[in-house]
């Protein structure tokens, strides 16, 4: 461009015509060269065209303990799919970013994945605050997010498929199980952010209205991320639980704060037979590298445990250990959620014949893939799965023994029946409703992006 400019400039000065001729020849040569190179680059780009799969999980910070293994899971699934011939004739390419447990950074990285890297789908997020941070980005840019973690519900976005448990697939059955064991006093302990706050709201309402627990038999308590001084709280739990009525702790503590919490429980001698703790965000991954013998008998509620007895689970674990080249690694529920989400996405893309978000979304409803506990997972029109509920007790080797499970799958309910406002709302992204939060009394669709 500059050369042309200079040429025109020179023209005005009526330079020697032979010089001009020479310049012109050089310019043409350069042009031809650029044209041919651009052509080849674009052709090779077409040939190396891949389908990009974004991975948005914290690889550092307080949530790294939980999220790093999910990044590895997606990488394994992408490699497996590529070995099976790719998708729509193209290879899959994983694009990994590290939002570092920093919620605003999650939104930035999501935008980067969608606009700069131009990924066709994103598997990511763990904490609800990270999901809430990226939600506006996905809705504005019409991206597609598969969210693999159990959460508090009260959401159904057009651009998100929730492959983790809603409260009616984890929290409520866990409370029912404990109540059946004779628990009369409840401690709700959580990290201070949206997921524990909302889940505890739902549980408080459930305990008071359905199980008729009185206010003084419920103790609610919040701590910051990464909290490490649990002395007072564990001592208070001990006091609360020693008054004669059977007490249990429902824990929505997230991230590495769980490690000193369980250590303190062990140190102060709180045994699972006396005051059982059921956790919703603690699985095999959070317990690995930890001596769990003082924790034997404490519980977790999930839709999958590594100890689930099924052939498909055995194969999955074998493949995983081979991929990660470390015999000490474990599998857990959010990993299964990514497996289900990924398989469903692949099936939907094949059904739709394209990776275009709107077409894939339409193709997702009703898609059924096997889950890892021997049953089938179905994607419903509210963007939630049908999943079985399992309650497991911690063993001395960091694994869980399944002590209770539902017979079949439970359909995920995005809007809980136990909060008065939410009980009147349904989510259904197919006609005629086509809305994530549709009020069945007023017939109005409101809140999040709709249409």
């Amino acid at each position, binding site marked *: 461009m500059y050369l042309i400019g200079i040429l025109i400039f020179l023209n005005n000065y009526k330079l020697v015509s032979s010089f001009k001729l020479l310049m012109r020849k050089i310019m043409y040569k350069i042009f031809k060269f650029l044209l041919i190179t651009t052509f080849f680059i674009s052709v090779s780009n077409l040939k190396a065209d891949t389908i990009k799969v974004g991975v948005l999980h914290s690889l550092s910070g307080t949530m790294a303990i939980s999220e790093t293994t999910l990044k590895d899971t997606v990488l394994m699934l992408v490699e497996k799919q590529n070995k099976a011939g790719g998708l729509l004739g193209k290879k899959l390419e994983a694009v990994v970013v590290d939002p570092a447990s920093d919620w605003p950074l999650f939104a930035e990285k999501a935008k980067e994945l969608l606009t700069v890297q131009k990924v066709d789908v994103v598997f990511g997020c763990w904490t609800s605050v990270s999901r809430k941070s990226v939600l506006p980005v996905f809705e504005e840019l019409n991206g597609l997010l598969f969210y693999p973690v159990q959460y508090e519900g009260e959401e159904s976005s057009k651009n998100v498929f929730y492959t983790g448990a809603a409260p009616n697939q984890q929290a409520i059955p866990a409370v029912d199980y404990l109540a059946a064991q004779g628990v009369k006093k409840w401690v709700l302990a959580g990290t201070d952010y949206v997921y524990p706050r909302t889940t505890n709201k739902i549980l408080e309402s459930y305990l008071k209205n359905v199980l008729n627990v009185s206010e003084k038999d419920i103790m609610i308590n919040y701590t910051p991320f990464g909290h490490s001084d649990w002395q007072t709280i564990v001592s208070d739990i001990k006091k609360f639980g020693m008054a004669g009525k059977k007490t249990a702790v429902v824990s929505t503590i997230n991230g*590495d704060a769980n490690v000193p919490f369980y250590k303190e429980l062990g140190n102060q001698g709180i045994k699972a037979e006396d005051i059982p703790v059921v956790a919703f965000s603690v699985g095999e991954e959070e317990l690995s590298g930890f001596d769990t013998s003082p924790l034997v008998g404490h519980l977790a509620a999930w839709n999958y445990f590594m100890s689930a007895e099924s052939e498909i689970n055995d194969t999955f674990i074998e493949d995983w250990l081979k991929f990660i080249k470390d015999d000490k690694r474990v599998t857990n529920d959010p990993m299964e959620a990514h497996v289900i989400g990924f398989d469903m996405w692949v099936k939907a893309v094949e059904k739709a014949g394209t990776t275009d978000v709107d077409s894939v979304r339409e193709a997702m409803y009703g898609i059924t893939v096997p889950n890892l506990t021997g049953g089938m997972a179905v994607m419903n029109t509210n963007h939630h799965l049908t999943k079985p509920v399992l309650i497991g007790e911690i063993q001395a080797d960091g694994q869980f023994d399944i002590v209770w499970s539902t017979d079949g799958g439970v359909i995920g309910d995005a809007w809980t029946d136990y909060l008065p406002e939410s009980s009147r709302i349904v989510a259904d992204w197919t006609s005629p409703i086509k809305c994530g939060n549709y009020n069945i009394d007023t017939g109005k669709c409101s809140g999040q992006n709709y249409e």
Partner: protein
Amino acid sequence: MGFFLIGNLHANKSLKEIILKLDTKDFKDKILVIEEIAETDNDLNLLALKSILEGKLYIRKSDKSILLVDIKDRKYFAFDFFDNTELGVLSKRKLKKIKINNNLRNILSNKIAVIQITRGNKEEKIKAILEIIKDGNFETLKVINTVLLTENDSDVIKYFNLAKNTIIARYGKDSERIEAIKSLAGNTNNDIVNILKAISENKSQPEVITLEAQEAYYKSIKNIKFNNIIKTIFFGLSLGSVLLLAAIGLAITFGVVGVINMAHGELIMIGAYCTYVVQQIIPNNTSLSIILAIPIAFLFTGFVGIIIERLVVKNLYGRPLETLLATFGISLILQQVVRSIFSPLNKTVYSPEWMSGIISIGGLELTNNRFIIIIFTILVFMLVIYVLKKTLFGLQMRAVTQNRKMASAMGINTKKIDMLTFAFGSGVAGIAGVALSQITNVGPNLGQNYIIDSFMVVVFGGVGNLFGTLIGAFGLGLGNKLIEPYVGAIVSKIFILLFIIIFIQFRPKGLFSIKGRTADD
């Protein structure tokens, strides 16, 4: 002899048949089988119950033989239950574990305790009797009396009498009950307190007994309340000791050298990682590795401190803002270096035996690790004071703090003292890291959790004054723990910060400030 063997074989066969009944999914059925095992006339029943409780009892699918399994590194080492023959490593698929749940655990502990009050050794007997105190009845009383006839150990006798009195207090003749209740008054054992409460609320008994029980119950409650106050103070002291450990190093560098070291938290983190590395090198002996880690962390972190001082801080003396920025940059670099060398995930540091569990003082139960850390902190503090007051280096440090120009005129190489002081402060931060590795997660972000607290303590206590730091740390720790039961962890932290902000308005130099003309420099 032969007759005995045959008798044994028969007993074993019937025990085996009972154990095989545990192969069911119904947990209620399992309860009945457990009770059967507890009652069979076979000495191995105790072993059976214990193995089920520990999750070690398995059934081999092929021949229905009963096995004891030890799991090491995910390999299943099997032994025959009845004759202990070693069967080597078996495949997980060939075995069926006898599973239990929390309810069963309770029942198993109970049954084991009942058997162990007659059969166990001293600790087992005491543990057993405490376990079944709340369920004691006339049957248990008979057993207790039988054991007491032949028991010689005074501790065992004491606990058995306690259990005896508990049973008499509930079920005995009215005349005996008052004596029994009187003997239980003031006891803080949770089960006994609940029993006293239950008796005091019983309407269908003579007035005398109810009153006696109420008095006994109130005495116990008073003792428990007193214990709780001591406990809160203990928590406050332990939090204070953590704050102090983290802050001493900063008090030294800030106080003497006048450098705002934003990388202080990372120096603590490096000390914690030193502990991890030492544990990797000496994996089998956690006690030795922790003790060795202390001087190693001191030297290594001190060395890192020297590097920081020589390369960066030396050039920025007298320019506090630049030092702040530069050391902040160093903290980021250190974090990333650790992330790159070790991985961003947390590392597990193991605690030695003597640091886990509880110590009981009277009726009070305090956690071991916190107790040891309080003592450790005091030792470290005394060491630092000793270095300051009794060594030549300390003398020179104090001189430079009080009046740099005069100290220089007296022949002290102030630049060298600055470097050594910085190194000393960093080394102490490293020692703090070793202690902190025992109570919190060891990860690249460890430093970030303690840097704010360290500055808080140093500013509150008074810059340059170590006793100020001591009082400040323990004061803030106690304050935090006194408020926490009422408002929760987050709000109590906020209150403490607000308190410090307001305090600083009135006393900008902190609690104990250095007096003298040079303090204004």
